[in-house]
């Protein structure tokens, strides 16, 4: 099957974005947890090609910021020392994709010569650029796993309700309504109180995935139910049943394939939604704990008024999500178009629910 070019374009764009996050260790110069206590709240480093004397350099370089005695002063660049950028250089050790030990970085500076902070540093002098890319690993993985759990739940519940109908349908759909009405954020606060005091980062991460994944199944379940309802009355399904096909065969062969388009579109819509949910939870302190980075707890720094008004680069994690969201939503609409080219306006499922 050949992919339409529109779909392919979005997939490539998303692939590149995710690649950057997956290979965060290579694209970033430092370990995201490393504290540079001499350089807290440094504004983004400027990369120069022309030095303070007006000479042009082929190799890009940067200046270190002078340390401030008084934090109310904006920092000054130390123009006496040119620090050249090194490309494909050895630096901090990291594990690519979590298991390949490497120390090669796309760019960094010579050790001891001064550190480059493309997007500034936070309260502990940690590199924001590294933290945003590494934070993306957690946020995006939550979104992907959460969407997977949701669709798995939604598809099985929706199919059961739609295909078998009757009391099962009634029960499951009332349950879905209940779930939609639940104030899940408050529930989560309550749930957190029952957990042990210090949850390890992995536990916290899994908790977020489970929570995000289980609260959202009701909507996809209803969509799937609608499709299954209409599909099981189609002539070819009736014909297959007439020839003695079993329920399992019918579901597997004829009905579930019908839902694939909706599931894919739903996935493309749900992933960014769940990334946002993770950010909300981490922002409120219910997500992955410090010192791990996620987009939500990066933004949590902004809860302090002084940070909010003093350090503009602390807003940058909020911008990181924009290309991802554009990518996913573009993919969703391309998928929709692909799955149902004649009914873009109505929407895939508008006529069946």
């Amino acid at each position: 099957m050949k992919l339409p070019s529109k779909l392919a374009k979005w997939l490539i764009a998303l692939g590149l974005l995710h690649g950057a996050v997956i290979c965060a260790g290579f694209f970033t110069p430092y370990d995201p947890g490393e504290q540079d206590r001499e350089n807290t709240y440094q504004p983004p480093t400027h990369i120069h090609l022309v030095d303070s004397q007006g000479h042009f350099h082929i190799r890009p370089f940067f200046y270190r910021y002078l340390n401030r005695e008084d934090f109310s002063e904006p920092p000054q660049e130390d123009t006496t020392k040119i620090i050249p950028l090194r490309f494909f250089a050895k630096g901090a050790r990291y594990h690519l994709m979590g298991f390949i030990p490497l120390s090669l970085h796309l760019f960094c500076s010579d050790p001891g010569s001064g550190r480059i902070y493309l997007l500034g540093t936070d309260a502990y002098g940690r590199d924001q650029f590294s933290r945003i890319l590494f934070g993306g690993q957690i946020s995006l993985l939550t979104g992907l796993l959460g969407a997977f759990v949701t669709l798995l739940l939604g598809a099985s519940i929706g199919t059961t309700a739609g295909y078998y109908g009757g009391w099962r349908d009634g029960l499951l759909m009332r349950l879905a309504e209940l779930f939609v009405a639940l104030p899940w954020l408050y529930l989560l606060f309550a749930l957190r109180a029952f957990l042990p005091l210090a949850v390890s980062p992995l536990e916290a991460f899994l908790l977020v995935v489970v929570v995000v994944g289980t609260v959202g199944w009701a909507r996809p379940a209803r969509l799937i139910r609608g499709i299954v309802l209409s599909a099981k009355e189609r002539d070819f399904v009736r014909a297959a049943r007439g020839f003695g096909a079993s329920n399992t065969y019918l579901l597997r062969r004829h009905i579930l394939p019908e839902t694939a388009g909706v599931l894919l579109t739903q996935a493309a819509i749900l992933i960014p939604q769940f990334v946002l949910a993770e950010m909300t939870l981490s922002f409120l302190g219910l997500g992955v704990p410090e010192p791990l980075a996620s987009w939500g707890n990066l933004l949590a720094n902004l809860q302090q008024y002084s940070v909010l008004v003093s350090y503009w680069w602390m807003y940058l994690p909020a911008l990181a999500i924009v290309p991802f969201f554009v990518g996913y939503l573009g993919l969703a609409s391309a998928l929709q178009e692909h799955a149902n080219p004649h009914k873009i306006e109505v929407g895939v499922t508008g006529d069946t629910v």
Partner: protein
Amino acid sequence: MRTKRASLLVTLLGLAGLCAAREAASYPHAFTPQQSKSEEELLTLPGELGRPGGRLVVSLRAEPKTLNPLTAVDAPSREVILGAMQADLVHINRATQLTEPALATSWRVSADYLQYTLTLRKGLRFSDGHPMDADDILFTFRVYLDENVHATQRDLLLIGGKPIAVRKVDALTLVFQLPQPYGVGERLFDGLAILPRHLLEKPYTEGKLAETWALSTPANLWAGLGPFRLKEYIPGQRLVLERNPYYWKQDGKGTRLPYLDELDFLFVPSSDAQVLRFQSGDTDVISRLSADNFFLLQRQQRGFTMADAGPGLEYNFVFFNLNDLGEKASSEMARKQKWFREVKFRQAVSLTVDREALVRLVYQGRGAALWGPVTPGNRRWLNTSVPHPARSLDQARRLLKEAGFSWTNASNGDSVLVDSGGKPVEFSILTSSSNADRTKMATLLQDDLKQLGMHVQVAPLEFRSLIERVTQTKEYDACLLGLVSFDADPNSDLNVWLSSGGTHLWNPSQAHPATTWEAEMDHLMEQQLSATTYEQRKKLYDRVQEILAENQPMIFLASPHILAGAKDTVGNFHAAVLEPYVLWNVEQLFQRDGAGSNSK
């Protein structure tokens, strides 16, 4: 000019007398309101001469729970009651930290330090115009010491478990009999509000004292001796106080204090919101500023005077769970407590803490590194010979090795500290989630301890449940907390150092001291309580500080400076390192332009 002012004062007094006469009719204890001005003995305060009139608006973190000094335990209530509405017999000056005359003009101590004779100021009146005399004081102490009242002050008036006795000599002289010698007896009187017998005796005999003087009390049923009296309370918004015309202080030129006509407390819950209200001009003064917000306001320079009063009396520290958990302890907890009980383990942690970075990162340099509970702000009691070991990872590793710990390499190449049983050293540190400074300290500590191979998790918790875990259920590994002494005197921290104390955080309310050094601390603290000279007490308290440094039950971290600010128009603004940081001289604060704050 002078005669005009004098005549104004006479008119004021005359008016006051009239009011008092009218009110007196409604009270059972009638009195003669005619008291000439010559009988009044006003306290004259030095300082800049102010301009009478105007209004000062201050934000308060929460609504006070009560206006009753007997039941006030929350900080906002205490701030309002003790700071602005009530007065004490002897007062500790928040700027000099020394005692000075207040409602009592003088006090005499007997040679055996058992008897304090206090002489009252003449012509004192409550804010409703009713005269105050020795009977009110007898009544006050009877109430404070009455077990059925459950006054918060009762514990302070028990010395060695026995109460203080009060005897009236004449209308202006009282004798306080102490059960055992107490070095700084006159400091006991600070913060003890004197209650009006004419208003509270009836509820007291009826046993309803604890319920009186709620926030909704009508203004005419409330009376105090402080610079301001109750005017109005608007739930959820503000508490409005007005000038007490009978206040017993005057300025250098004979103008009766306070200068301000009105003092408003706005309820502004978060410190960031308080900064915003101050920036927009809604409030006139601000205290308890974090260093971040201090620099923020300083940078803006919009008619604010920002003040750094230096290190305060807050000390932040980490402590480990050293409670005797008995059978309640899980095997995991028992293993952890074995590390925590090892003094070399605690010393190693202390050696690893980068205190200099804490001060720089958490307090932006506006703070002091600590090696003991006495901050550099308390020069009188600081033991300067307590060693300040420099940060040394090598030494910390050596100590850990001596204590039987070793290191192994984890799968990801990190070095991990393991105990003699081969189990990795992992624990969590509780912090208060509402305190950004302490959470930040814990995160820095986490990174410091990682360098020793300890795996530390930070667990931010809501303050109330944190205190419950530490003092009640005792389900925690380690905790990062701060304490603020209410007075520079060591006695204010008695509860922390005595092993029987409820704030003896690492192992509170012990029946018998668990260790020999805790027993020695108990002994020293009790000795200094009855020692009579400063030199003796200092020597004893110095030893307490040494014991703490040797045994590290608390690993002291850092102390923030007291940072405050006021509008340029506020006169006599001098921040102090003791609470209330800004309002301690509220009677002398004044508005230069007379206008006051623009919010309504």
